[in-house]
């Protein structure tokens, strides 16, 4: 995906979220660090443009809820930032860059349940690459990218990597 593809996909996703939610009321957009936070910020920027009002956004660190902590070296913990009105009775849209096994999203739902009780939780991702381990699906998808398990999907965003791009690398075809 080129930088144009990324921004078009994000604009469409932002519109879809607003359409499904019938506007921006009671919406909270939470990004999953690190790239999900940048995506969440971009989504709310588009929504603000369309609706003419700010949509609360934040970050949700899920490190402490991962189920693979014991299999990996210690990870640094990112900050969780919940916008002031909280998430109780709101529609929370979780945002991540790539949806793969679904384990990150599972951890994010656990993390959310400790912060409050949203009315609904939706999932928006830039890339859905398939190969789910858990019964989880995305509500809003930037692009479906069929891959093999051995391939790597790399999402680059200008906030972190200097340019917008999605690449598939590695893997035997």
């Amino acid at each position, binding site marked *: 995906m080129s930088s144009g593809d990324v921004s078009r996909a994000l604009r469409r996703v932002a519109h879809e979220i607003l359409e499904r939610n019938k506007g921006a009321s009671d919406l909270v957009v939470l990004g999953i660090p690190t790239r999900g936070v940048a995506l969440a910020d971009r989504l709310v920027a588009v929504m603000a443009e369309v609706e003419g009002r700010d949509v609360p956004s934040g970050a949700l*660190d899920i490190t*402490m*809820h991962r189920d693979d*902590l*014991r*299999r*990996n*070296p*210690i990870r*640094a*913990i*990112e*900050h*969780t930032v919940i916008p002031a009105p909280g998430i109780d009775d709101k529609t929370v849209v979780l945002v991540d860059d790539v949806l793969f096994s679904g384990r990150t999203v599972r951890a994010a739902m*656990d993390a959310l349940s*400790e*912060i*409050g009780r949203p009315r609904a939780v939706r999932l928006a991702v830039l890339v859905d690459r398939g190969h789910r381990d858990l019964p989880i699906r995305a509500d809003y998808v930037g692009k479906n990218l069929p891959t093999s398990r051995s391939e790597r999907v790399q999402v680059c965003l200008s906030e972190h990597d200097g340019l917008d791009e999605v690449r598939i690398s590695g893997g035997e075809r």
Partner: protein
Amino acid sequence: MKRHLLSMNDLDRQDILAILDTAESMQDVQRREVKKLPTLRGRTVVNMFFEDSTRTRSSFEIAGKWLSADMINISGKGSSTSKGESLRDTVRTVAAMGVDGFVIRHSASGSAQQVSEWVDAVVINAGDGLHEHPTQALLDAYSMRRRLGDLAGLQVAMVGDLTHSRVFRSNLICLKSLGARVTVVAPPTLMPAGVDAWAAAEGFDTSYDLDAVLPTMDAVMMLRVQRERMSGGFFPTAREYTVGYGLTRERLRALQKHTVICHPGPMNRGLEIAADAADAAQSLVLDQVSAGVAVRMSVLYHLFAGEGSLA
């Protein structure tokens, strides 16, 4: 990071910063309605305290519980040690029950190190005699950093009973790693033997004149006069100690506006620290206590959450 936390020397600068950064996130958890994280579910950690303690023991216990570890308390009194069982037998007995870690406080210097050689579990030193108390140094650094920012280049004074202070020894190593300049102040009788050679080797300053030191400091750490270890005639009277080395109301006025005051607790109000100083806006004493839980959560996370941490 090493497997155990026995001394501040087990942590390099990178490790210290990682622990302090994680503690920042843990402090967010402290303010939440539900304070429980599932991270250490299924881990069992034993708090073994052979010396009296309020804040260290309870903050380790709270820290462990908030991370969903099972925390068990064993104190010297009321355990089999009072029937004459040796430390080695006691810890090996408990280790044989399959625990993952020990948090240990004991009056013998080097006891945590010894325990780490006797058992397979992870050992955290929560104060061993006159030797070290690493988590206290970490929470002091954390509290100071929150108020003052990066500690590199800051002037920190440690004042009081240096000879008997494990807090002093751990802080010295920690502050040096973080780049602060330390000045130690004590009456000659409470300066550790051979301090001059030590100061030259480790790069800290010594002074016997508190009033000369105070005006240039960014942080002043008052150490407790340990009455239980004061049988050796180190100073003539408590009053005389206060006049020479207590943080009195007059000395409080001599501090710069931004200078912070730390005390590891428990405080002897009116002896090493006046009530005015302990309760001043510049005082970090209560910040240190709440930081204690966040920093200990962070330490438990770094020692128990990752791969290879299981014995």
